Structures are given as C-alpha cells and as structure tokens.
C-alpha cells in the first residue's frame, strides 16, 4: 500500500497484485463457468470495498448495504425498462441514485450509534425490499429484466467484456479506497472512529464526515449493483434482501476489515468456500454457519492477516 506517495507495498498488497494478475489471465482458460463466477466475485468485492469504508475505517457497522447495491441494479433496470441502454447514463444514474439514497438514509441513521445504528440500517434496507415487492411498476416479486448496457463499442452483454470491465472497476475501487483512506478525509474519519471526542474538540464535525463516508460508500455500492444488473440481465428484490447485507459483512470480516485489500480476499475466499461446500452438500450453510461462529471466536484479523506485513486497523467502533 502507498504511504504518503511512496510506494510501499505490504505482503497483502503483493498477494493482491498476484491474485489480480491471475484473474486477468483466467479467461484464457476459456471456461464460461469460471468467467461467470469471476465476474460475480469482482462485483461482490467492489461492494465489500465500499462497505469497508464504513465498517473498517468509519467504525460504522451498517447492516443495510444491500439497499445501495440493489438500488444501483434497479436504477439500471428502470432505465432499461424505459428504453435507455446507454452505459454512461445508466451507470451515472446507478451511482448518483445510490449516493442520493445513502444521503437520505444516512442522515437519519447517523443520528444514533452502536447497536441502534445496526438495527436502523437493517430496517431501512428492509423497507426498500418491501417497497420493491409492493410496487408493480418495479415488477413486484418478479423484478425487472435488463438489456445489458453499452459504452460505445463495449457491450456488457458480452461475457468477456463484462469480466474485464468488472475487473477494471474493481482495481479502480481498490485504488480509490486506498487514496481515500490516505487522504485528509480518510485520516479524519479514522480519527473519529478511534477517538470521537478528541476530533470534536479539534473542530471536526463527526456527523458530516460520517455522512460523506456513507454517501461515498453508497455510490460505490451502486456501481457494483449496476454491474450485477448487467451480469444477471435482471434486477430482483433478492438483491435488496437483508441476507446480501449479511454476506457482504461476512466477506469483509473474512478478508479483514480496515485493510485495503481485505475485501478482495474476503470475496474470493467466501465464493470459493461457497462453491466448494455446495459441491459436497446442498446444505452448505449447516457447516458455514458454525464455522463463522468459530472464526469470530478465534480470530479478528481475517484472511488478510495471514499475509505478513499487513496490519489491519482493528475496528474499535461499534460499542
């Protein structure tokens, strides 16, 4: 990771680069199933990166991140439904719409802290889930079909194109979160996480910084949602379901929250575990659930902690 402009890659950073390079070569294997899984991993990793800004660096445990992910997908789907397939417009709507949603819901949720914040973010996301099933124009329970977007000659309905666009946006997401955390804004955010009273007495308004983090995270999750809508050629209420919010938190902690590359490792390992376990049994959650409990008992460092030199900042917020 970069520290004040100097390139100082940690062990985790090197491992992440190797992993990303491997992903760039993966389509050479010409396995449609593998590229499909890979694209899914990139999208989830991008959404987890956005959640990391809140949980890892802001100390804000949001259990409602599916709201912004799903909103991004629905923005693309609604435009597609009314005949707009231009990528720039659809993606701008997804990012902007999710950011606006995060501004509204964040302004209300951030009035409380700790366990109430968890409950409220979960409740607001559930509100959107119920709304999506109740509104017939949004397709109700069935959701909306999506015609994949085009950016000039790039057509996202093309499997390989979407794979590389998603990979590129994932890399961009990693760089953005790295720069953001190293910036003045990021340092203030981490300062508020670690000692809110001190930052307040230094003249910073924690509410404004947290709200901005919430909006940025919402926008990035919306981008991931827009990609997901292109991958599935569909936007359904399932994308807004609370279990997606839970999965994103699990991926974040598996990878190591408060580490730039943690979300990447988390998304990869979660998907691998899920694919492998579901190869043996259709009841994979019967084994993954207790494993998750054990992971919480024995470790707080996540998969990123396995690589030497990575020092994830522990989440001290939330209590």
């Amino acid at each position, binding site marked *: 990771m970069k520290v004040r402009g100097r390139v100082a890659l940690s062990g985790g950073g090197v491992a992440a680069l190797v992993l990303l390079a491997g992903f760039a070569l993966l389509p050479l294997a010409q396995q449609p199933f593998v590229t499909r899984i890979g694209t899914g991993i990139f999208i989830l990793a991008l959404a987890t990166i956005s959640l990391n800004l809140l949980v890892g660096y802001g100390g804000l445990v949001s259990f409602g991140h599916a709201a912004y992910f799903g909103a991004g997908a629905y923005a693309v789907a609604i435009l597609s439904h009314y005949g707009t397939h231009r990528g720039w417009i659809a993606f701008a709507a997804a990012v902007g719409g999710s950011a606006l949603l995060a501004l509204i819901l964040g302004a209300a949720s951030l009035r*409380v802290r700790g*366990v109430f914040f968890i409950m409220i973010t*979960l*409740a607001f996301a559930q509100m959107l889930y119920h709304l999506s099933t109740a*509104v017939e124009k949004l397709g109700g329970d069935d959701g909306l079909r999506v015609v994949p977007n085009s950016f000039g000659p790039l057509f996202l309905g093309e499997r390989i194109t979407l794979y590389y666009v998603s990979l590129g946006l994932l890399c961009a997401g990693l760089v953005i979160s790295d720069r953001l955390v190293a910036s003045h804004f990021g340092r203030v955010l981490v300062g508020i996480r670690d000692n809110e009273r001190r930052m307040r007495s230094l003249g910073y308004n924690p509410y404004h910084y947290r709200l901005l983090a919430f909006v940025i995270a919402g926008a990035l999750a919306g981008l991931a949602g827009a990609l997901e809508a292109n991958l599935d050629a569909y936007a359904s209420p399932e994308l807004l379901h*609370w279990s997606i919010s839970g999965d994103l938190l699990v991926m974040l902690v598996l990878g190591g929250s408060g580490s730039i590359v943690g979300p990447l490792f988390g998304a990869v390992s979660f998907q691998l575990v899920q694919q492998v376990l579901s190869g043996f049994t259709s009841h994979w959650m019967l084994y993954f659930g207790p494993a998750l409990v054990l992971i*919480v008992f024995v470790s707080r460092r996540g998969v990123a902690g396995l690589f030497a030199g990575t020092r994830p900042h522990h989440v001290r917020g939330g209590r």
Partner: protein
Amino acid sequence: MDFGLFAEQTLNGVQYGIMLFLMAAGLSVIFGIMNFINLAHGTLYMIGAFFFATFDAWLGNFAVALLLAILASLLLGLVLDRGVMQRLYDRTHLDQVLATFGLLMFFNELAAVLWGTEPYFIPVPALLDGTIALPGDIDYPVYRLAITAVGLLVALGLYLMVEHTRFGMLIRAGATDRETLSGMGVDVRWLYSGVFAIGVMMAALAGMVTGPLVAVQVGMGETMLIVAFVVVVIGGIGSITGALVSSLLVGVVDTLGRALLPVWLGYTAGPALASMSIYVLMAAVLLLRPQGLSGARRA
C-alpha cells in the same frame, strides 16, 4: 371503509403488536443488560413454531404441546447461552452480529433439513375455533382474542417479575452496574443465562401462538426480527412499558396502513406506502426523539 372493518383491523393490529412485544421485549432486555445484539432472535421465533407444530402433530393435544414447546425453548435458550452467547457478551457489536448471523444460517438450514421447506399448518384447537360476536356487528375469531390475552398476560407477568421480584431486582441492578452486582456476590453469568432463556422463550412463544394463523416455514422469523428492531428503536431501550406502547403502535399502524391506504390512495400508491409506513414512523421518531418514546438511555 365501514366501522366494523376498521374495528376488526384495529384488533388484528393489536394482536400483531402483542406478538411483536414478545419479540421486542426479549431483544430490549437482553440488550439492556448484556449489551448484546442477537440476529438469531427471529430464528428462535421460527424454532418455537416448529417445536410446537411437531409436538402438536405427535400428541394431538394443543395445551400439552404448548407446554412442552415452551420448556424445550427455555432449554434451548440455556444451552445456547452457555455454549455460544456467553463468549460474545464482551465482544464488539460487529463480532456479535457476525457470530449470530452464523447461528441464524445454521438454524435456518437445520430447520430446512429437519422439517423441510414446505410450509406447516397448525390447526386451531376446537375450543378456540370459531368467532365471537362483538359490539358493532363484528364476528371476530376467538383464537386471535385468546392469543392477544395470552400476550397481555405475559407482558403483565414480565412487568411484575422485573419490578417486584428478587430476580427482577437483580436484572435491574445488572442493567445499571454489573460490576458492583458481581462484587456483591451475585453470579452474573447465571443471571445472564436466565435473562437470555426467558427472552428466547418469549420469542418462541410468539412463534408458537402465531403458528395456527400463518404458514410455519423457514424464514418466517427474520421478517419478525426486523420489525421487532423497528419497535425497539421507536420504544427506546430499558423500559417494558416503552416496548409495549411501541409494539402496539407499530402493530396497529402496519395493519391499518395495509387495510386503509390502498382504499384511500388506490391500488398503485397504496400498497407501496403501506409497505413503508412503519419505517417512515421510525424515521420520524429518529428525527423528533432520537432516544425513543420511553426516553431511556441510548447507546
């Protein structure tokens, strides 16, 4: 909308609110004392309903099945507390959320393995079947009135226990200052186990008595859990009366919203707004009174 239908829907709202209270009171007391957020609380609502459905199918006796299911859920609560939850009370909320999310996955999958994914239907006992004529030309189901009464009795019992028994005094003392309490020779761990088991039992009881009204199936608990969170946010932590008022408010607003809004606003905007009503209520409370209706402390 005539008066009869309005009154009937209000009664349904009260009945739903009482069930929400059984969920939210446990959540609120457990959070107030152990500073613990349990995402698996809704799953225990589902497990309660499955226990009851199974015992009822075996024995064919509603009352005995109910008693057995209550005992089984108390036991499950104790085992869960001793086996898993005790290790989580001192951890961060993020750890608590993740571990109880893992438990939730486990129990939902286990229920799918043991009881299948097809919904179960529990018959209403013959004694409570049928309707009763209420003033205003309403024929109201006896069973719904009965479970509303049961819920109110449990609420009263909980209130008396917390305010007027030695165990309740310890609970209140634990919520105020648990270190002093344990310094005075009280085994706080067993106090926690007792509180947790009672919370589990109340959530499971709500699942049991709601069973004959709905389809008992995997996933039924999480919908209840999230609405119970809304109740806790609106009511505030630490007050049983606050939780009761908030539960009834949410129950009635949600039920009447679903009945009235489509009639007033048409079948496009009505259902959409009705699905949002309790969350809008929650947002309004957050803006006007972030500490919740009861005004108790806010973490």
